[in-house]
């Protein structure tokens, strides 16, 4: 019709961000639009670039530790853990069992806070406000628990090379048990309010599908990958820390749409609760710090790669040491960067409303992309 009338079909550019309510930080997306349909989406990243990798080259090993909490501020402890494990590998230190248990417990608690925040923020993207405050209420309990032993509520810097600096006490264990039963009693509310909601199902079913091939092609990891039906989780496939001693499952989806990713994240929280519960019962006594940790961290020459499963996927760290007090080079493989790279393909031929739904569903943390 348009061609018949001799009218030129025109597209226009819409600039979404860097300050937009639903880009979750400073992400900018340049959209080429035809009406409400997106023809091309081009993410512009780097507004929060701080040069973490370069900072690492100019600091000694201990000084770089706080930087890790600023990469993915939502699951900071997994990043801490990855770095500590990598340096421990370089130094050839064995971490005491109790310390490994504490690391797993705190990291899993942190994973739950991350997923809870995603849950709330995502529903807010879809226009529902109330779930946000529900899960912030739950999240508050975890933050209080972690606050007591780590000293901070968001950008944690808790693990040390060789173990953890402060021990947990019975209050913490009791708090963990109370939280486990509290969150379990809340699942019903969440499912009634969100999972079974017709509008929610319509917004998320068959929207933003990521196929298995696309996952492999783009290196997508984490719940996004598992939502597409590939049961890959570093905690199982390359078990580290205390994870081999726990009994937990890897929830997977079938279709790879937003709904599947949502279900996977919710199921993952339940699995984390299981790990915490087992850890509370099985935690051994003993030291929390390895004995032969040198005062001055100066690893021998060598290279090491360590990967962990964070709330967003596989985070890997490659450290090259030349026998100095500073690392020669650190390369960070961050999950959101890989997940985000699929976003332009995902956004084509969708509506603006779906763009927001898709962007939220892959759960990106911008500082980790910009680093």
């Amino acid at each position, binding site marked *: 019709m348009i061609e018949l009338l001799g009218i030129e079909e025109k597209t*226009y550019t*819409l600039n979404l961000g860097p300050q*937009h*309510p*639903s880009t979750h930080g400073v992400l900018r997306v340049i959209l080429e639009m035809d009406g*409400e349909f997106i023809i091309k989406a081009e993410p512009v990243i780097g507004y929060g670039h701080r040069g973490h990798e370069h900072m690492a080259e100019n600091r000694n090993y201990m000084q770089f530790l706080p930087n890790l909490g600023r990469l993915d501020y939502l699951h900071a402890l997994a990043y801490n853990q990855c770095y500590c494990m990598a340096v421990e590998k370089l130094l050839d230190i064995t971490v005491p069992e109790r310390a490994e248990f504490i690391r797993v417990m705190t990291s899993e608690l942190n994973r739950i806070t991350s997923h809870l925040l995603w849950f709330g923020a995502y*529903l*807010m*993207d*879809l*226009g*529902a*406000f*109330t779930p*946000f*405050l*529900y899960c912030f*209420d739950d999240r508050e309990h975890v933050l209080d628990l972690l606050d007591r032993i780590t000293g901070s509520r968001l950008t944690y810097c808790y693990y040390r090379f060789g173990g953890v600096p402060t021990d947990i006490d019975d209050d913490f264990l009791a708090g963990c048990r109370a939280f486990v039963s509290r969150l379990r009693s809340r699942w019903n509310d969440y499912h009634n*309010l*969100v999972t079974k*909601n017709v*509008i*929610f199902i*319509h*917004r998320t079913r068959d929207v933003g599908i990521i196929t298995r091939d696309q996952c492999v092609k783009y290196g997508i990891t984490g719940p996004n990958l598992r939502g597409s039906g590939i049961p890959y989780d570093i905690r199982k496939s390359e078990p580290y820390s205390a994870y081999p001693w726990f009994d937990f499952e890897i929830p997977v989806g079938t279709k790879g749409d937003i709904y599947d990713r949502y279900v996977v994240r919710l199921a993952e929280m339940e699995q984390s609760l299981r790990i915490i519960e087992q850890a509370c019962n099985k935690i051994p006594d003993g030291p929390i710090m390895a004995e032969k940790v040198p005062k001055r961290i100066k690893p021998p020459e060598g290279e090491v790669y360590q990967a962990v499963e964070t709330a967003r996927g596989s985070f890997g760290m490659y450290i090259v040491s030349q026998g100095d007090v500073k690392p020669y080079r650190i390369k960070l493989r961050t999950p959101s960067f890989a997940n985000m790279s699929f976003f332009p393909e995902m956004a084509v031929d969708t*509506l*603006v*409303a*779906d*763009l*927001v739904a898709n962007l939220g569903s892959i759960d990106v943390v911008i500082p980790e992309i910009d680093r």
Partner: protein
Amino acid sequence: MELVAQFLGSAGARMVVGLIGVIALVSVNALFLIWMERKVAAHMQLRPGPMEVGPHGAIQTVADAIKLMGKELITPEKVDKPVFWLAPIVIFLPVLLSFLVIPFSQTMIIQDMNVGIVLILAFATLSVLAILMAGWASNNKYAVFGAIRSVAQNVAYEIPLLVTVMSIIIMVGSFKLSDIVAAQDRYWFVLVQPVAFILYLICATAETNRAPFDLPEAESELVAGFHTEYTGMRFALFFLAEYTNMFIAAAVATVLFLGGWHGPFFPGVIWFLLKVYAVIFLLMWFRWTFPRVRFDQLITFAWKILIPLAFVNLLITAFVLKLR
């Protein structure tokens, strides 16, 4: 003295007193509704809401209104100035006029026109024009988006709304709101027209741009939709109009389905306001429970489900009336 008495008894005086009353009601109502919305939302979200200004934050909205009045009215550089200035007024006037025909009680009605319901529906449509003006004049892509969405949405939802209202009107045989209420002295129409009531509520939510149909101002997508560029009192007028529209939608629901001023013990006006605020509470409940629908789903829902249902309901009503 006689002249004064004559004047007070006349229709003109009734109009003047009525209009002053309406303006007072509109402002007080909006202040109350905003407070109520915040309190309802807060209690649904396990928090107390405003608590600081006045008992339980009762005059928080008064403080907010004063703050808004003190704000600078920013007119962005490349806006279409006359239209940009006019839009908040255009959205507010029809809202005021709709109050002319609402029967608060048997006697409390400013002008009992014989086309009352038509007048309200006609003025309700005018708000779309204002939204379109605001969005178009703002020279902002998000605002235009909001405006376009608003027009499409209102056109789609007006049809089932009118058809639904029609089924009540053929039962009563009058457009006069007081007649419609008077016809419900034995039973409320919600009992015989439950489908129509649900249809009306859905359409009214969409017409007043409330969640889950708040697409013209969907903040996670469109920042603030059509009023992105408005500040201060101009923004406040849009806000005021939204809440007053809600009141009108609830008042029409009360008149058509919930028996208007009818009720035991209390005077009619109290019953009327009670029912209105109950309906408003329902609308708030929707907003704080549901996620937002997507635009294509919204339009599909209107054209494929609501409109056929409304027509079927109208046909059945007509058929039953004919048989009786």
